């Protein structure tokens, strides 16, 4: 086959597939969001944002992302640097730490339900320590803090691994010579981390944060399993509009709002952590 045509033939299936199942549905959802049957309208958005639950939903989603992502970033950085200087058992430790990567958000929610449930392990432990004599129902509307904490812990438990993997791969690409040179000049481990690891890790940090933040706005099943309706989030409301209220226009509008937030944060992260022009490792 003609060598100039070959690459186009090879990328054609993916391009067609993504046009049909990514770009086209995106256009559809936009159309759906901006129309209620007759012409262009913002009614769907007005309906969605005017609903009393909307500010709570929005606040919950953003608050959760703000609480979870920085902890995950710090934890993933810590784990990545720990693994980096490990000599024995590196593979085993890495396997254990990356297990949650393969676990679905629904399963993670169920796992933490086993702990926070009324007859769950947290209650059993508190009982064993003599702190409570009968099981306390933790996940109720009287304890919004505990519901939030449970969801937070489940998210941190589940989704730190994805950042860890990206950061470990990134640290592996940093040449060892930089560290050796810094050591010769007497830089402490902390200084080395600040002055070498962090700046050179910027591309990986970028990817890790973008992926993680988008996933944080998509949070759905963990919340459904642990909080149910106690802790409404954007994605859950979208699902409710589509199924319980059978209002696909509103669902589409809310979907576009989530999309807009995701894109805005992606751009912010890319901008803040941009790699200076011409700088490479």
């Amino acid at each position, binding site marked *: 086959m003609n060598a*100039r045509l*070959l*690459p186009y033939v*090879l*990328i054609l299936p*993916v*391009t067609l*597939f*993504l046009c049909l*199942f*990514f770009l086209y*549905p*995106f256009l*559809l*959802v936009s159309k*759906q969001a901006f129309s209620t049957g007759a012409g262009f309208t913002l009614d769907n958005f007005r309906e969605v944002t005017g609903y009393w639950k909307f500010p709570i939903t929005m606040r919950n989603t953003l608050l959760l992302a703000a609480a979870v992502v920085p902890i995950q970033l710090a934890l993933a950085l810590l784990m990545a640097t*720990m693994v980096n200087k490990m000599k024995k058992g590196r593979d085993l430790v890495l396997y*254990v*730490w*990356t*297990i*949650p*990567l*393969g*676990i*679905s958000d*629904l*399963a993670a929610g*169920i*796992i933490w*339900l086993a702990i926070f449930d*009324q*007859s*769950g*392990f947290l209650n*059993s432990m508190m009982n064993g320590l003599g702190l409570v004599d009968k*099981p306390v129902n933790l996940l109720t509307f009287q304890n919004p803090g505990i519901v939030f904490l449970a969801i937070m812990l489940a998210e941190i438990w589940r989704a730190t691994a994805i950042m860890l*993997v990206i950061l470990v*791969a*990134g640290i592996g690409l940093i040449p060892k010579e930089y560290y050796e040179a810094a050591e010769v000049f007497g830089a402490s481990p902390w200084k080395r981390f600040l002055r070498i690891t962090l700046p050179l890790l910027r*591309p990986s940090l970028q*990817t890790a944060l973008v992926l993680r933040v*988008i996933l944080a706005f*998509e949070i*759905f*099943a963990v919340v*459904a399993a642990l909080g149910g309706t106690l802790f409404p989030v954007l*994605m859950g409301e*979208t*699902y409710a509009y589509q*199924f319980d209220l059978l209002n*696909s226009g509103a*669902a*589409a509008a809310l*979907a576009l709002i*989530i*999309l807009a937030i*995701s*894109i805005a944060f*992606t751009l912010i992260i890319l901008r803040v952590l941009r790699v200076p022009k011409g700088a490479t490792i």
Partner: protein
Amino acid sequence: MTAVTTDAVTTDTRRAGRWVYGSAVVLLCAWVIVPLYFLLINTLSAPETVNSFPKPFIPEFDLGSLTFFANFAGMLTALKNSILVAGLTMIMSIVIGAPAGYALSRFDFYGKELFRLLILLTRAFPLPLLALPLAVMFIQTGLDDTVFGLALVHTTLAIPFAVLITFALFSGIPLELEEAAWTLGCTRLTAFSKVVLPLILPGITASAIFAFVISWNEVFAAAVLTIENRTLTAFLLQNLDTSPLHLKFAGGFILVVPALIFIFAVRKYLFAMWGIANR
């Protein structure tokens, strides 16, 4: 004299440092494993124990919960659907994605950057949301509530990864190997199938497994697009409010097991895949 004491102090701090480091590693491992262990206890306990209080901290190895799960109406069908959808996703994403990965690694062509942008763009999107308009499109085409329809959506989720991972894998194989095969009389196709493919096969398998897991774990699109033919995740989600605890835990356990095996199977490729695919 002073030199000796400082030496002693540094060895002491170093020993303390190593101790802190070691216990931090153990603690973080426990942080991952202990919740999984709790799920295991609940799964391997009789339904009565799961609902009782206080909980035992060792499993009683009773298959009551799992039997209940297997006998629960629709559960095994849901399990079968999950496997079918994930299997289809795996095949489609590799068959469609791998050629593009090869093209990206071997050719410089006009529009390459645009194509890469299209792939990367999918990452900035909460893709499961696109299941909403697709639900309408699928009803029009008769794909609604079918395993194949859902597999198409899951393939959209998995394909960017398949392209980027295979791109990284193909880039790891020197072009010289292929060129050598051409000079020895191979065509582009035979050079690919006899030289590149055997080298790349383990990596392709790993990325196929990755696609399987992506589909297996997906909840939102599955719940939106299926009604009768629910996958396991969609089924569990829909019955969260009504199902008894032991059913939830057994279901969660079944969801976790393949993930554990798959991550173990691809652990060698995990970092190579992510490290390069994400740059």
